[in-house]
């Protein structure tokens, strides 16, 4: 075990905690700059790939989102400043994602095992997952406007990790010394990344349903961006990964505890998250089009997910078989 690498991992987390507020401020300034211009839609960054040039998209607005270039009536100077702010925010978020990933990798190297054994490691990995998934998809999907909530959430998680849950790198109890640890917990944490982004997009979609808020949001969100469809894409990936979390957890439980399902509080909580997102997917199709009720169900699922990672891990009233992995 290399404790010096553990120290570097903590340093990387601190560095990310220094970078994230700057990214957050830049992203907020970008949104503020957009809000001051005419409400004709955000100036998109030069897209990495061009979408269809000649295809005419018909249909109800917002139903099949397609990033058409909205002409902003702002002066070129203003647009350049907006673009620079947006690029700054995005690059700083990339940097924070890289730092958090480095922290996870270094922590794993310092312990000689996947860093999935306690609350500190869970939360660092979750923060890394959220910022990584966002960074991978931001450019293609013109998600600069989403940088503020993402950096804010990542910052909160990282600070909680360092202030509340820090523990030095250590070895695992025998029950956790299994290759399943890397599989089961990693899949869960990657799913957290996608489901968090889905929750952020769903929140904005629900806000967009209110006319007064929508008028303000129109300046910030690229015109034609179909928030609900983007949230759906995030949710289906997260849901598939969560299904694998359940299955891999059951396979591991069978090896470690003798039964693949024992209604342990953490198992129940994972199932509850899965059921709520399943209800969300069903509700999305019941009325023939996605409804606000479906959106609220997605947010309920995200709340259950947060409780799964915090309350169930930490609260003694949820004592069960999973509790040694809490702190």
């Amino acid at each position, binding site marked *: 075990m290399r404790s010096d690498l553990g120290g570097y991992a903590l340093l990387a987390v601190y560095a990310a905690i220094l970078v994230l507020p700057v990214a957050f401020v830049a992203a907020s300034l970008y949104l503020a700059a957009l809000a001051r211009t005419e409400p004709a839609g955000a100036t998109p960054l030069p897209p990495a790939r061009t979408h269809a040039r000649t295809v005419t998209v018909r249909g109800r607005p917002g139903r099949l989102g397609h990033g058409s270039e909205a002409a902003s009536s702002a002066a070129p100077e203003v647009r350049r400043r907006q673009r620079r702010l947006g690029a700054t925010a995005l690059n700083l978020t990339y940097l924070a994602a890289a730092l958090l990933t480095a922290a996870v990798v270094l922590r794993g190297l310092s312990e000689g095992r996947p860093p999935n054994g306690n609350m500190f490691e869970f939360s660092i990995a979750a923060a890394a997952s959220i910022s990584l998934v966002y960074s991978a998809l931001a450019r293609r999907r013109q998600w600069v406007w989403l940088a503020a909530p993402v950096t804010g959430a990542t910052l909160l998680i990282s600070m909680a990790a360092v202030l509340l849950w820090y523990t030095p790198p250590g070895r695992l109890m025998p029950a956790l010394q299994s290759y399943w640890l890397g599989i089961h917990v990693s899949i869960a944490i990657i799913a957290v990344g996608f489901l968090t982004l889905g929750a952020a997009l769903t929140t904005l979609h629900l806000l967009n349903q209110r006319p007064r808020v929508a008028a303000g949001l129109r300046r910030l969100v690229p015109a034609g961006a179909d928030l609900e469809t983007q949230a759906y894409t995030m949710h289906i990936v997260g849901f598939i990964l969560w299904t694998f979390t359940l299955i891999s957890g059951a396979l591991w439980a069978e090896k470690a505890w003798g039964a693949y399902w024992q209604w342990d509080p953490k198992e129940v909580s994972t199932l509850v998250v899965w059921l709520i997102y399943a209800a969300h997917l069903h509700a999305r199709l019941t009325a023939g089009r996605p409804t606000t009720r479906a959106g609220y169900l997605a947010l309920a699922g995200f709340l259950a997910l947060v409780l799964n990672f915090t309350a169930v891990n930490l609260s003694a009233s*949820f004592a069960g078989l999973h509790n040694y992995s809490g702190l």
Partner: protein
Amino acid sequence: MPLNPSDDSPPPDAATTTETEAAERPHRSAGPGPAPDPTLPPLGPIGWLRWAWRSLTTMRTALILLLLLVAATIPGSILPQRTVDPSRVLAYLAAHPTAGPWLDRLGFFHLYSSVWFSAVYLLLMISLTGCILPRTRQYLRTLRSTPPRPPRRLDRLPVFVQFTASLTPAQALTSAREALAPTRRGRTLRWPARAYGYRVHAHTPTTLSAENGRLREAGNLLFHISILVVVLGVAIGHLWQWRADVIVPEGQGFTTTATSLDTLNPGPLVDPGHLPAFALRVNSMAVSFDTTPGSAQLGQPRQFAADVTVSQAGTADRAARITVNHPLGIAGTEVYLLGNGYAPVITVRDARGAILYQDATPFLPQDAAYTSTGVVKVVAATPRQIGLAGFFLPTADPTFSSGPTSLFPATIDPELILTGWTGTLFPGNRPQSVYRLDTSAMTQLTSPDGSPAVARLRPGETYRLPGGLGSVTFDRVVRWAGLSVRHTPAKTLTMAAAISAALGLILSLLVPRRRIFIEVTEHRPEPEGRRGHHGAPATATLPGCTVTLAATATSTDPHLARVLDRLHTHLISTARPSKESAR
């Protein structure tokens, strides 16, 4: 993933219901005035059953049942459950004397086997079955069907392109058909339009209908059917499973008979007399703890392993090692190492030195440092039986400031602390726990000054019991292994069903289901001055047509526009060579 009413066909029985209603409706009066309310036919019992069945199998009911299942599941993780931790249930009942028994009566402490929880998920499964069967029938029909006719107004579809190309209609249609359903290997269209097996059909000479993504519905059905199989596998597993736990000190063993096992929990359909026969002997245990001084992990367990020998009739004895996460498979069962502790070897002699009791006595650990409690029942002592109860401390706290506590889980400084009782060990021959002493018919041994006689022994030491009753010797300490033998049938079925459910889920969510319609209209050559779209004067020899592409998707599909763009680009590039030759 979710099952929704198909876009293609109307719900079954709608036509017949409307007909029935129409036949029964009274004729409107010819004059002005409000028409009387139509009288609907009364529903007989069959009608009510059909209504109930139809309501149960709608998507809305499934949604309600899913959320009900969530609501029903949550109390099980908040309130203690008997299957997870029975002692916490007892503590809860003691702490809540009024609410506790009511919760117990309503089944909240064995929630997942209670009637109402079972009702919720059974209803959900019935709803699911009632939805799957018609949809499977529908799906099998669509497997043989052709893509539908293009709609009359193509520009009403979500994605729509109209352009002119210098191709004959036949060339355009052939090129499109070649792109969507290539006859030779290799992709002609780039992602996301790459053919997922488009079926192409020409209903009229100037149109083409293409449809793909039948795998999506197949995945959907596979997912839901697999869920049913998972539930079935869990049910089979519950009915025929059995579990047995036994505490085995090093050097001893057990056999799979009810008398040799400590606890045996057979499932409802298991005959405890017919368990697979084998014997297992624990030779030694390897347990290690973290000894890094000053580390936060000091005292954390590092390794649990039991070296065992397995005996079965007809085969030679074999040695094996059981560790956490690596159970041992024997005769269709799995033996898990789930616990460990210390068993001090205690010898009790009578006044003349004859051995009344000598055994490795398992003591149960109470905390992370393995402060263990245990009991010695010397049944052979006469005229009054002797019982000893106390603590075993692997690393005794020398100060004794907070009573007998152990400081570290490894045997660095083992100490045995016992008090003695004499009397009747089994008053009324009532059954009692091996690890608890019933002192209701016993008196405590006291030292000469009246305080309870306490023996504090290190390995090898002997304590003389007061009153000339004999002596207690702490010989040495061995470990015990907590083994659990489990037989869970249908495990493989459940696992396979779960994995196929995951695969079905992936297909049902990620495979796009698209319909593309192509319509070509030939250009009528104008008498004069008409220009073709590349600027050269149109001549009768230049082919030209207007191509209309339209696409729709039956589910949320963010890439639909790009698919059509790819097809458009492909058709333009097909036209280009003929443009060159025309020049």
